[in-house]
């Protein structure tokens, strides 16, 4: 999004603070002085990652700070779900499990945390999956379900409450 604010000390910080308040993740801040603009204002472009539905809150907060939003760019919704897998993850080829999601092209495993207590004991891992749309996410979860049942793993899904 492209923001406009007073060119005074502390203004950029004031504009960025609401982003963290709504749980957003700043990917890039592009700050370029436009020679044509009058000296009082500063124009900033921000690329950020935000949870679904939080954009409205951010806009409200920014307005409160006296920041003018010139333009909101392309919204690329990032659906994110966390699941936990329990079982013999290494023996059942964990990289294949991850690849089954990654190879779809519409969803990917973006994070993986794992704990392996001892050889031959079941290990546990947490996978964060990202996708662009909700349908893609449901598809990815259903792929994971069949992989889990095929490999004898216990899949723990998050509780969704959207009816």
């Amino acid at each position, binding site marked *: 999004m492209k923001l406009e604010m007073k060119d005074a000390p502390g203004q950029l910080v004031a504009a960025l603070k609401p982003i963290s308040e709504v749980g957003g993740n700043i990917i890039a801040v592009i700050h370029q002085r436009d020679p044509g603009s009058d000296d009082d204002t500063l124009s900033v472009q921000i690329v950020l990652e935000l949870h679904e539905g939080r954009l409205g809150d951010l806009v409200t907060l920014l307005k409160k700070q006296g920041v003018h939003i010139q333009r909101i760019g392309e919204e690329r919704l990032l659906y994110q779900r*966390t*699941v*936990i897998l*329990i079982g013999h993850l290494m023996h059942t080829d964990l990289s294949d499990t991850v690849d089954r999601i990654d190879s779809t092209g519409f969803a990917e495993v973006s994070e993986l*945390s794992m*704990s392996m*207590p001892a050889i031959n004991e*079941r*290990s*546990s*891992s*947490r996978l964060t999956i990202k996708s662009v749309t909700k349908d893609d996410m449901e598809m990815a979860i259903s792929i994971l379900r069949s992989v889990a049942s095929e490999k004898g793993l*216990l899949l*723990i*899904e*998050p*509780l969704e*409450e959207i*009816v």
Partner: protein
Amino acid sequence: MKVAIVGMGSVGRGVVEMIAKKRLGLTVTGIADSKSGIINAGGIDLHDVLEKKHKTGSCGDKKISANEVIKKADFDALVEVTPTNATTGEPGLSYIKMAIGRKKHVVTSNKGPIALAYRDLKKRAEKNGVVLRHEATVGGAIPIFHMIEHGLAGNEILAIFGVLNGTCNFILTRMSDEGLTYEQALLEARQMGYAEADPTYDVQGIDAAIKLVILANTIWGNGVTLNDVNRTGIDLLTPDALRLAEDEDSTIRLIAEAIPKKGILRVSPRIIEKSHPLVVEGTLNAITLETDMAKEITLIGKGAGSIETASAIIGDLLFIRDRYVERA
């Protein structure tokens, strides 16, 4: 109103105690346990019965059976609180049919007959002009059916999510809070008297699934059975899995879930944010309903216990009294 009670386990004794203690306007004219029975049209002395049960293990005369109490005693409503048999529903199922056959109202805490034969029993009751109520079968003291029928009358129930098994919730709470293994937490649950010697029924989600079936049948009348529930238990969970959930301010709970429009009927351990209203501690139960008008409503309460379950039964009895028996 006159009441007969079959079953003198923890729930039956709780009901008798509360009727004896509180002035509810209920007269007990028949009581039976598995070995004996007592009939007194003028009203049984409940303190005597409780004392006798405590001392001898039997509540009455060995020559009088539960069948006889149901067939011969003079009562308006039967309280059927015999142990649950999830496979046959017996002996509760026969007792309920017998009472309905005599045109008597029935209040039960017995999950077996309700999960197996709710539609049939309800039809029989309607045909005979009596009612069958089963508030105590799901969520212990939580008045879930009263809320759906009355408080939420006119709402369409879109989905149910519930923590319906106190034993599982206790085990998961302990694994999460103390980092115990499943085996350690189960042992603790046994020592506290929350888990049976054979915990299969609880930890594999069968008990929660039966309650989900009862909820679904009562709310939507869809005739689902235990076999229709997609079920995963908690016995394979690791402390690591709980810790991994914890890292994201979440935890794991056994959630029963029914969303008819999506064809979902499932009991499974789920990752759930700690701030979610369904994340309750210890043996508590919780039920969230999603409805078209009221949107989300969550009830939390004691899912088991003698007096807590008696609360649900007495609520049903007094509802029947006010609505059907002493109205005319």
